[in-house]
């Protein structure tokens, strides 16, 4: 069984980024290799100048959802970037930016937070995913 977990991170709201970071951290803690492929708004969220800014929540959150998420942040839930950093320190986590999304959003490698390891295309993503599971968020 290929234990590699590959995550396509397309969404750029803080709730989905947090959910993705949780999946990454859990896999890393279990010793599984994790490959993250950043596309569109998921990629945009990793711009160095606003990676920790408020990226909003999915539309279904509403005001009550917003309040619940804010309370969780104060009550000991780490920021998704911090969770990803910890996961990277502990395990084998590789983060690649989709080259086509970089083009569309006019993002250069230097614009991205250093947690992003490199730039790749979709073929490289599939090769690295091997026979392991692929998750789309």
């Amino acid at each position: 069984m290929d234990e590699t977990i590959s995550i396509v991170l397309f969404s750029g709201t803080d709730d989905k980024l947090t959910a993705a970071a949780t999946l990454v951290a859990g896999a890393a803690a279990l010793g599984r290799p994790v490959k993250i492929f950043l596309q569109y708004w998921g990629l945009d969220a990793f711009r160095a100048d606003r990676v920790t800014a408020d990226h909003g929540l999915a539309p279904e959150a509403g005001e009550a959802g917003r309040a619940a998420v804010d309370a969780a942040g104060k009550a000991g839930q780490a920021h998704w970037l911090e969770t990803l950093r910890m996961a990277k320190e502990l395990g084998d986590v590789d983060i690649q930016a989709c080259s086509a999304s970089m083009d569309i959003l006019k993002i250069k490698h230097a614009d991205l937070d250093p947690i992003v390891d490199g730039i790749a295309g979709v073929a490289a993503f599939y090769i690295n995913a091997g026979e392991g599971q692929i998750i789309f968020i």
Partner: protein
Amino acid sequence: MDIKLKVDASGLSCPLPILKATQGIKTLQPGELMEVVATDPGSVKDFVAWAASTGNALVEQDSANGKFRFVVRHK
């Protein structure tokens, strides 16, 4: 029981307790014991899964007053 390292993950929600445990176990030598205390109810099943998957032995677990305590032996 000679606990080499105590990790307090109280008040932290998933996935931080198992991340803290992974951080902690890496500082120990084979055979040494780590104690983790968490308040996240999800950590009960998580630590069983984490131990089974990483090969570190969950040698003790109990709960009292909303706290969950785990003792893990480094493989």
